[in-house]
């Protein structure tokens, strides 16, 4: 009897464990039909902020939301696994370059009918942000709306006002970009030994090529792709000149930390320590930058031969699963997070993003109590001259990754810039062509 009870108990426990494992294995649906699941990512602070915005949604609508938050570096793999397992959360963040693939393969729900029916100010969201998640079956930027922009991240340039004042360097104009010669002159004036120990401890700038090459190259008239997005165009004089300029900043003029100095402490760390004159100041860094013991402000990126400043805009999308059992409610949450004034007040209030809506932004730029003073620069980028990196309009991002794979010797001036670009263009073109081929196959397969 005792043995039977033991066996029964043990078998029951084993069955419970097995059932629990099966039920909990990557299933991101909620079993409760009244509960939405929302999967998102970000720093601890950002996750807490969005948690508060979601709580406001619950109070407002009565709809419960189950939050699934993941560290940034694990997010895309976890989402992909959820899609593979057919257990996509009702609402989720995704990287903008995945829009085409997710639409073509039926992962994202079409939000257009919900937008037409809502009272939320969706049309107050930046048009550039909305366009990024439109797709007509062939190209991004037109057609049905498949996601809301969680935010727009204008990748702006900035400068250390305190360092400029200390070294007596004229600060840049907030509206007129420096040309490359002027920019180099300022950088040279900012580079030097401040404490007299014989070692350089301030530099004009520090270029993170992966993030910043876009602005140098675009402002010089270069581009990654042809207008129809079918041909890689890095083998042009404009592109080569821009890359050479970046290399020369370090290797010829010494106005950025050397490879060794960058490895020891990267440009970001040196900027935080007040050692860099010009540096990117993106919105997601503002919370930290405001705690630094120097003043900073925004300015346009220097302009190459095109004469006009250029930079890129980043974005994350908030999508709704095409298999959601509560698509209307899920779409409501996505739109709420993207444009509800009270939700935006919570999100923007923490200083990690610029307002997602134009009317809120108009008020936000007037606030001079918080750095940077020249917040208008962010708005100008979003409304006027910012661009999206073109991996957002291609099917797969591999072609752009290929550019960076063998770039290090070029940055160290061990390999000629033009030779590298000429040799890399066909490699990138092959990847781009493969991406289009994959796009075509997937389109046909999903049409069946």
């Amino acid at each position, binding site marked *: 009897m005792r043995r039977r009870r033991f*066996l029964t108990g*043990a*078998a029951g426990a*084993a*069955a419970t*464990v*097995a059932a629990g*494992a*099966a039920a909990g294995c990557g299933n991101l649906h909620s079993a409760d039909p009244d509960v939405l699941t929302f999967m998102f990512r970000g720093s601890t602070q950002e996750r807490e902020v969005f948690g508060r915005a979601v709580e406001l949604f619950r109070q407002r609508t009565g709809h419960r939301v189950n939050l699934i938050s993941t560290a940034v570096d694990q997010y*895309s*793999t976890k989402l*992909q696994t959820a*899609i*593979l397992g057919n257990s996509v959360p009702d609402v989720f963040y995704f990287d903008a370059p995945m829009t085409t*693939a*997710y639409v073509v*393969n*039926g*992962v994202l729900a079409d939000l257009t009918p919900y937008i037409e029916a809502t009272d939320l100010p969706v049309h107050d969201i930046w048009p550039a942000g909305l366009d990024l998640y439109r797709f007509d079956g062939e190209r991004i930027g037109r057609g049905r709306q498949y996601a809301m922009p969680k935010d727009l991240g204008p990748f702006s340039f900035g400068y250390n006002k305190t360092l400029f004042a200390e070294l007596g360097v004229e600060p840049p104009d907030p509206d007129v970009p420096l040309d490359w010669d002027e920019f180099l002159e300022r950088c040279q004036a900012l580079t030097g030994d401040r404490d007299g120990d014989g070692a350089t401890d301030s530099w004009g700038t520090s270029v993170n090529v992966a993030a910043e090459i876009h602005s140098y190259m675009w402002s010089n008239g270069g581009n990654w792709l042809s207008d129809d997005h079918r041909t890689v165009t890095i083998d042009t004089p404009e592109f080569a000149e821009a890359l050479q300029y970046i290399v020369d900043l370090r290797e010829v003029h010494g106005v950025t930390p050397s*490879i*060794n*100095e960058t*490895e*020891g*402490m990267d440009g970001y760390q040196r900027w935080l320590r007040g050692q860099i004159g010009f540096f990117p100041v993106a919105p997601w860094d503002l919370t930290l930058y405001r705690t630094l013991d120097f003043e900073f402000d925004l300015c346009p990126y220097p302009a190459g031969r095109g004469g006009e400043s250029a930079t890129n805009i980043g974005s994350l999308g908030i999508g709704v699963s095409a298999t959601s059992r509560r698509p209307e409610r899920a779409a409501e949450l996505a739109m709420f997070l993207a444009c509800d004034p009270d939700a935006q007040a919570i999100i923007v209030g923490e200083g990690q993003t610029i307002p997602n809506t134009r009317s809120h932004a108009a008020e936000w730029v007037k606030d001079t109590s918080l750095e940077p003073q020249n917040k208008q620069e962010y708005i100008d980028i979003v409304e006027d001259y910012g661009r999206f990196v073109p991996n957002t309009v291609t*099917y*797969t*991002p*591999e072609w752009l*990754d290929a550019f*960076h*794979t*063998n770039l*290090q*010797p070029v940055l160290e001036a061990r390999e000629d810039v033009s030779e590298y670009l000429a040799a890399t263009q066909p490699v990138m073109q092959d990847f781009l062509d493969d991406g289009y081929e*994959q796009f075509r*196959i*997937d389109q046909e*397969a*999903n049409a069946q």
Partner: protein
Amino acid sequence: MSATTTTPAPASVRLTGQGGTSRHRPGDGRLHRSERIWGRVFIAPPVIGFALFALAPLIFSFYAAFTHWNGLSAPLFSGLTNFRTMATDPQFWQSLWNTLFLMLGIPIGLAISLALALALNRQMPGRAAFRVIYYLPGVSSVAAISILWQWALNGDFGLVNQLLATVGIEGPNWLAEKMWVKPALILMGVWKGIGFSTLLYLAALQSVPRTLLEAAMLDGAGAWRRFRHVTLPMLSPVTFFLVVTGIIGGAQMFAEINIMTPTGGPEFGSATIVWYIWQQGFQNLQLGYATAMSLVLGLMIFLVTAIQFYLNSRNVFTVE
């Protein structure tokens, strides 16, 4: 055949019949039937788990390797396309080469751990503390170790270069230079695995029969000859085990690469085959291709392990 010769009873009779006359098959009784049922209940969870989470994916992967599959929608049969792509994909071969190169750490690690085990096998003060210290990396998370070594290998203020500087050597940018990134990863791998290998060697050393060593000594063998001809052969099962598991583990190296060199390293110099499979499958929507590469990798591991078993079948010392 004499009258007293007895024919061996059938196994079932011997197993079940208390008096040697029962003709019941095993498990026919109520008690046995009940035990049989409960036995099956108990083995069911791991068997079902294996079938669901190992066997079924394995069978599916054989099919998926022959498909165009982006991981978002249903796979499309594509024949040998993935395998043809693999044959001409320089990054596949580069990552395979990187993976093989990193396995140089296996013999290095074995040699060091054997030396350490020999040292720790002697009476010395703090022996237990040393054993714990050497084993600590074995119980630490790979992520923590990777971040730790990212700092240690930092070109400017990293511990490795600071140590080199004390003897007048200017260390390289380990993780940023193609030439040095693999040695750096080998260095970390050896450090990480040394405690486990040392522990196994230590246990094996302590089980070497003293009688053999004493016999060799009586035959006039010196310390080196005793080590070469007695101790080392007696350690061969452990060495074999460490080499096999080392190769299997080395072929699957991923987390360290993804944390320390998230883009595959300078000029793809540290991308291992599993890292490349992950990149193709989860970042470039080429899950069919990634599955084909996984199959090839699995086949390679199987072949290498089979060859090792074959080659070692006559060399490895076993106790009958």
